[in-house]
């Protein structure tokens, strides 16, 4: 099935991991957080969010635990694993290099 988020897949992973680096969160919270922090610029396609979460969990970057939410409902909380934290650092460095390089190219013309 065609995934509209194919191109930004790596980016979405990065955003999720970064968000979870602060504190464990459920899916809804992650989406809200990304929206708020990016000042409403980044709208997480919510149809892509959950598959991404499940994939990251399968890969061992994040782990999930059921807990009580702020509105007293059963919610699935995701948190970063140690491997995930390491992975995030690596990805972030790479992203910085990439965006820096793109900036350089864009500014030079």
């Amino acid at each position, binding site marked *: *099935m065609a995934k509209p988020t194919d191109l930004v897949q790596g980016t979405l992973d990065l955003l999720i991991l970064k968000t979870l680096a602060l504190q464990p969160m459920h899916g809804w919270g992650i989406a809200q957080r990304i929206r708020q922090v990016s000042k409403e610029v980044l709208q997480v*396609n*919510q149809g892509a969010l*959950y598959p991404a979460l499940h994939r990251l969990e*399968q890969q061992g970057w994040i782990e999930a635990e059921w807990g009580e*939410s702020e509105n007293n409902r059963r919610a699935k909380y995701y948190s970063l694993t140690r491997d995930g934290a390491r992975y995030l650092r690596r990805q972030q460095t790479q992203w910085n290099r990439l965006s820096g390089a793109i900036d350089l190219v864009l500014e030079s013309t």
Partner: protein
Amino acid sequence: MRLLYKLPLRLRSLFHKGDADRDLEDELEFHLQFQIAEYIKEGMSSDKARSAALHSLGRFQQVKEECREMRNVNFIENVIQDLHFGIRMLRRSPGFSALAILCLTLGIGANAAVFSWIEGILLRPFPMVSGQERLMALTGTNRSTSGRDGVSWPDFLDLQRNCTLFDAFVVDKIMGATLSIGDRAQVVTGSLVSSNYFDAYGIRPILGRGFRPEEDYGRSAHPVVVISYHLWQDRFRGDPNIIGKTQMLGGQPHAIVGVAPQGFEGTFVGWAMQFWVPVSMQERFVPGGYKLEDRSARWIEAYVRRKPGVTAAQAQAEISAVAKRLEDQYPETNRGFGVKLYPLWETPFNNAGALLPTLSIALGVVVFVLLIVCANVSNLLLVKAFGRRHEMTVRLALGARRGRLLQQLLTEGLILSTIAAAGGLLVARWCRNLLVLLEPRRGGTSMYLPGAVDWRVLVLSTAVCLLATVLLGLVPAMHTRKLDLTSALKAESGGVVGGRRRALAQSSLVLIQVALSFMLLVGSGLLLKSLHALQSTDPGFSTRDVISTWVDTRVAGYDKVRNLTFEEDLADRLRAVPGIQSAAFSRIAAFSYGVYSSSPIAVDGYVAAPGEQPIVDYNEVSPGYLTTMGIPVLSGREFTRADDQNTLPVAIVNEAMAAQFWHGADPIGRRIQVKGRWLQVIGVAKQAKYSSLIEPLQPFFYVPIRQSQPGSNLYIRSTLPLSALSTALVREVRALDNNLAPGEILTMREEVDRSTAVQRIAVNMLGAFGALALVLAAVGLYGVMSYAVTQSTREFGVRMALGARASDLLRLVISQGMLLTTAGVVIGGFAAVVLSRLLGYLLYKTSPRDPMAFAIATLIMVVAALAACFVPAWRATRTNPVQALRA
């Protein structure tokens, strides 16, 4: 580390699918609630908020599906689904499935059979023997002839004492003995073994015991025998009280001390052993007198087992060093003699060494056959894939990923190859003893060459099966990859789009098949020519009207003098039988496994080059031997009974010897020195072959039996039919001594044929597989051409409407088929030129580029291709132009 997270998750996804799915639903529902709450806060009605929330999450079910996909649950489910679907597809076209499975079964079965032969004959030939992977064959080497030799018993004991890298040294010398039980005399094959034989190999006799260490020593002091399970059942009717009974063997009663377990057939590739006696009984079973205290008597063949972790090279290095020390210590007997170890599959003193090249070639050939089969079945699948183009396109359009389709195709391939692999293993099991059938039988006993279908064969066959699957799935899969959605859907009714590409794929598959089968045809042609050259080689003696047999007088306890009298009486009596022209004895039988006497010689008037020590083989023969064998005496005379111990020692030399030592001068009256005795040359015999047809011309001479050792091999020249001859022979032997019986009768033709067995097996094998390959290639070609004709109906219609005659269309189609064939033959021809060199020594007097073999292979290929193209071409000519154009 990450596996710690991943593994439980995966397991949970698989085995607690329900839980995992409920969790997923809860999670998404939780998300929905928040979204709905937010929309309501923004002022929507609750119904509207819910539908908007659902919308924002994308299609609910699809998200769930994608999450499941991420958890890899679907993979397993898909496999099961594909299996169901695949089986349904195969059952829907049973003809196709049966054909594909039959082809694959042949391909995989041929591979499994050859694997099982290699396993059972070369790699692990001795069932029940422990530590076989570390077992090596041991023989002596002779530097002056750069040939192989035996090892003497004193040397063997010294090697055993001084080597540290081995955990077993086992003497194992094959021999035959006449076994008479009641009135049935039979020659059975047994081994003379060192007393550690059963213990070292971990074989526990089911009755009685193995041998004791002291049974290695004392001249003929331990007449004890362990018999095989088969002998026990067959000749002793499984007598439970057999232990302690005696049996005449080699002319001496032997006490039966043990019965070997069922399934233990001894340690000789080619024959199953029936009994074992200890080394101390050597004199009774190995001709040439008492040898156990003689360091110069080299007769032992043996196996050694390396300690775990010791490499073959280390083992050889140590044993060579010890042999070198023995050489220094005993220069008069050991100078120039070394010791060599061989891996089991190169064992020179049994059939392993001879079968190695044949089985290697067989392995190459069956891999070819497998490739051809895969190409063929791929072709069939391709046709089907094209038929299923619509199905594939629809699935793609409905959102199936291409990887998913590939998985489906591979699963179908896997179903086919798994069924075929199961069938193939059955084939391999049936073919376990097939190799024996290819070997010529020898006087009613067939060889023992069992294949072994063990776990290693299973693993290899599974690998072959997987390889086949990938090869099968690959071509249709590549085809799907190229599938273009819109054009395929649009062109649904037209039916030519993609045809060209498919035709290309199909053509290249046929090309491969033609090339491969052409190579096999060339190979069989070369081997056939070689076999023919071999069979038309003149052995130098008559192969017609001469039979060989033997009479073992040691059974009745004859001494040398009595034996000689008996043999001469028997020869006289036989000559008196109408239809028998002559009869004679020799010590060693021509073309047998027996080893001729051989001696360093000195020749009157011949000055050897410095460092040269001429060594020549010879045979001890009775008067009339050369006449009986049909070897002409070129000058001088043959032996007579007057040539005995009281007269001058004499010899008859052959042509090569006369040429080498007397340079064309007449050698008659000259002298040669053999083992310290001077013999006068009294005749020159025509050159002959002595051990095999492929041996080079070698110097050889004969000495009279009366002046040397007697032998029991009997030759009779007669025009009687074999049955009459046999009756007469038994009658005459019994008339002289009722306790004696002649051995089996073989014609000299059979003896000679036996020496070409390896070539014969190779020809049969390559021929059979070559024919199979040819049929497969023809079927493939037929398929391609039929398809091309069906596709071009409209074109043919146009051509006919424009005035083309039937013969034009016939030519058009056939020339297309021939183009493919020619290309295949050219490619196969180049490959054959390179590969035929691998046939190596199997090619006797035949060049690996023999133009005849290539020409005949081309002819056969072309005829087969013409036949395959003719039916489609003929169908093309039957095209009805009106119908074709309207369609």
